[in-house]
């Protein structure tokens, strides 16, 4: 255990019970559901991701795209205005484009489906970044700059010249806790669980609400599913 403190554990009110992963099958395959009905585009998940994972300035493992042409701006759909956000991090694909192209297998799918990144093996060729259709991999171009003069979070910092990305907070998974982005969402728009269990919340939501995969036609089979909004936001033109 490092002397670092998780931003979640640092909160006195943090309830470990809230962060516990739902009961899982014997061989879990982790997945996430993002409910676009609930997402309010607040970037809380992105910010906590940065402190939990010690992500330097200028780099984001997690971001909130606005569907449309302008940030936080409604778009016109069939004459009506609609606004929806698309929180975007590594999709932990079933058929990842990135792991295939890595010349040294520094990025690889784990048994439970998490796409890992080994900062000690990575040679920094950035082929995975070229191959990823989601633009969620970030590279350490130079020495890390941080708003604090100390490291934060529960994972070691990555060296210059290597790739990094969302890990579904594997260090928290090992502790039976949900990823920090899921924990921090004030709208409970993110749900995490076991896709192998047909009765898990994620499986049920995907089934019942018609979960969609991003860029499904590329065949990467993301394990992050988006639930499209059910109703209009009530904005008139």
């Amino acid at each position, binding site marked *: 255990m490092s002397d670092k403190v998780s931003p979640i554990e640092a909160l006195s009110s943090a309830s470990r019970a809230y962060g516990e992963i739902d009961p899982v099958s014997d061989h879990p395959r982790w997945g996430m559901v993002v409910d676009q009905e609930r997402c309010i585009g607040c970037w809380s998940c992105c910010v906590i991701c940065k402190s939990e994972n010690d992500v*330097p*300035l*200028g*780099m*984001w493992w997690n*971001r909130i*795209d*606005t*569907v*449309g*042409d*302008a*940030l936080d701006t409604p778009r016109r759909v069939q004459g009506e205005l609609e606004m929806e956000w*698309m929180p*975007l991090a590594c999709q932990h694909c079933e058929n990842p*484009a990135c792991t*295939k*192209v*890595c*010349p*040294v*297998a*520094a990025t690889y799918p784990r048994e439970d489906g998490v796409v890992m990144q080994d900062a000690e*093996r*990575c*040679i*920094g*060729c*950035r*082929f995975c*970044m*070229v*191959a*990823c*259709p*989601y*633009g969620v*991999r*970030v*590279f*350490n*171009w*130079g*020495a890390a*700059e941080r708003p604090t003069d100390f490291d934060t979070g529960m994972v070691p910092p990555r*060296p*210059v*010249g*290597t790739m990094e990305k969302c890990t579904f907070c594997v260090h928290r998974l090992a502790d039976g806790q949900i990823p920090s982005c899921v924990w921090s969402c004030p709208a409970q728009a993110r749900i995490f669980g076991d896709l192998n269990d047909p009765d898990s919340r994620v499986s049920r939501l995907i089934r019942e609400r018609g979960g969609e995969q*991003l*860029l499904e036609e*590329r*065949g*990467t089979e993301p394990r992050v599913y988006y639930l499209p909004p059910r109703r209009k936001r009530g904005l008139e033109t």
Partner: protein
Amino acid sequence: MSTVASTSSTAESRPGDRSFRVWIVLLVLGLALGLGAWVYQLSQGLVVTNMRNPMMWGLYITLFMYFVGLSAGGLIVASAGRLFGATRLKPIVRIAVLEAMVAVMIAALLLLPDIGRPDRAWHLLRYAHFTSPLIWDLTIVTVYFLISATYVWVYTRADLARRGSRLALGTGASLADAQRDDRLKGILAAVGLPAAILLHSITAWIFGLQIARGFWYSAIMAPLFIASALVSGTGLMILLALIVRRAGKISFKDDLISYLGGMLAVFVAVEGFLVFSEMLTAAYPGAGFEADPARRLLTGPYAGFFWFEVIVGLAIPFVLLAWRRLRADPRWVAAASVLVVAGILIHRVNIVLNGLSYSTVPYPPGVSIGTAQPVGTTSFALSYFYHPSLVEYLVAGGVICFGALVFTIAARKLPLRESDHAQFPNPTS
């Protein structure tokens, strides 16, 4: 019509020595600057380049592709001459294989400054992951380098032996040696041509297998890379042959240049056809995955590059080369060669820039740039207009200067002139 080059008889003349020395000094200077820039880049990280997350490959990879392509000329001339009986290419075979060897060496060396952790380059051997086209490419680049180096040796070793050079590795210049050379040349040609085809195809597949990149993900990439390699490789071949002839190291008649020019015209036509076929297929649907990048090339921000490639790099040289009267004059063929060599460079730039510089998920704010940005500005980008930094130019220039240095010294020291001995070995020498 065809005249024997006037300088051919007085090789190694004194007046050339001064400009030769200046040339060497310039190359060493370029190499030193490049090394200095690379040391600086090593100390700071790739942050000193202008590559960032929204445009993660830049000048180094572009030039890698380009030099892989430039190496085509050599083995094509050597292998085709052998396999298809184009014996008139003989006077330039040695210079051709030397060019192939040096070009592919430059390409391989350009990968070193591109990777973020060159200190871990040995991981490529230790942890080689064979589903990666990069591993395939490193393999074929190594094989191709070895084949072309063997080629250079086999073609020059008899003359080296006659000079008593240690580079002959103890082989002689007897009739038996010549017969063995002949067998070896046959084997090399049979191995070299498929290796060349593979080299360009695999380099194309680094790009063409990426489902994320609409403009790249196309079965035409491998044929396109072979065609563009033949264009730029033959173009460079013609220029080098003329330069080395002027330096008095080889001699041939002008009609050889016209002959190569005719070949180049065919290659340019094939390249033009493939580019047209690619663009039509991509642009026809009008919008989406493939059409958007195509539109950026045709009428968008990269239109200048694209039309340069098409008009200056393909159309004008094709006219120069297809016109029989112009093709008869080596100066026009040389001019066309300069244009195609420049045109294919821009073609490579277009592939990389247009393939990478736009976010694949087209929603704002886009991809995080990767370095701390000034307060009040965004650290995301949906598109990123890349131009190389000074460090990138210096490092890439250093690698190219090193290659040119190797080529110049090898061209000076090695017996490049096709000797009569090759056909009629003198057992007593």
